[in-house]
């Protein structure tokens, strides 16, 4: 079993070298390289050396344009997401049905999200290794996953009964919690995203 695993991971090469003229150092280096190849940081290093990543990183115009798209899409994506969050909290647009806000704004927030994800991925692609090692990037990704979980929980619980509270000026607790959690997470995501530019804790 262990042998099969070693073979699978390509470690057998290092072992074979050990039996021959290879020194301990070369074995050590080779083993490191094998582990490196499989890890996320190894993937980021590989990504950083692709022509597209280098071109994007060194581009005079494309990188700033992608970054601008990423920042300004905040208005479309987050601006309209906030409208629903604030409605779920009962803070605004109380005259509108919660489901109407959710459904009518969804196509727009979806477009915004796709733009965010595309431009964000390109920004990562331009500077993979540094970004991957950046604490703020890791915090941001964690909060993004939590925000997705929040949507999933809300839609599979409180939102199922939306017909019962659609016109309530202040929706039930489950909806208010979902709105508040979303607001807090997205605020954190924006701040963490901005801080990726700084390498205070690398």
């Amino acid at each position, binding site marked *: 079993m262990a042998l099969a695993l070693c073979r699978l991971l390509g470690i057998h090469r290092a072992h074979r070298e050990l039996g021959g003229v290879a020194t301990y150092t070369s074995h050590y280096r080779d083993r490191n390289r094998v582990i490196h190849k499989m890890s996320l940081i190894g993937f980021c290093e590989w990504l950083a050396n692709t022509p597209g990543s280098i071109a994007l990183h060194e581009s005079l115009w494309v990188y*700033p344009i992608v*970054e*601008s798209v990423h*920042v*300004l899409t*905040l*208005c*479309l994506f*987050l*601006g*309209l*997401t*906030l*409208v629903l969050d*604030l409605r779920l909290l009962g803070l*605004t*647009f*109380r*005259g*509108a049905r919660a489901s*109407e*806000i959710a459904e*009518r*704004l969804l196509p*727009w927030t979806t477009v915004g999200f796709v733009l965010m994800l595309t431009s964000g991925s390109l920004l990562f692609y331009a500077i993979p290794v540094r970004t991957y090692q950046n604490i703020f990037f890791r915090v941001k990704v964690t909060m993004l996953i939590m925000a997705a979980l929040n949507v999933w929980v809300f839609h599979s619980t409180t939102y199922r009964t939306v017909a019962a509270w659609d016109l309530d000026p202040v929706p039930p607790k489950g909806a208010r919690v979902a709105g508040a959690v979303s607001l807090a997470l*997205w*605020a954190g995501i*924006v*701040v963490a995203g*901005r*801080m990726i*530019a*700084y390498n*205070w804790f690398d």
Partner: protein
Amino acid sequence: MSLLPFFEFCEHSAVGETIRNSLWLFPVIESFHLLGLAVIGGAVLLVDMRLLGLGLRSQPVAQLAKDAHRWFMGSLIVMLISGVLLFTSEAIKCYYHAAFWVKMTSLLLAILFTLTIRRKVVASDNSSPLQSKLVALTSVTLWSLVGIGGRWIGFS
């Protein structure tokens, strides 16, 4: 008359010095500026989209605009305060940056347009569809210029 002495005064003010010499003040203030951007962007877009017949189509324009106006004014205040603070820390750079002047000109026009013509059109029920659409497109264009100009100040 040159405005440069005023920009130099801002740059060398105690506030400007403090922000410039701090490691974390600039990014923290900028984070508030970005959070304000999301709110003001949403408040502007929601109403402009409605004027174009998109988004919350079944809501009366006047009611939607009234609700959105509070968020617009609140976020505008956050944007102006955080924006002025960011400006003081790099006022001289701004003076020589075309993007800054593009942003300030479009910002002035955008605020004036939003609080006068657009406000009147969204409050009345008898605006023609063409009139509404023109107002929405003007608003989106002006505010986009503000946003793009603002982002471009950061690129030197």
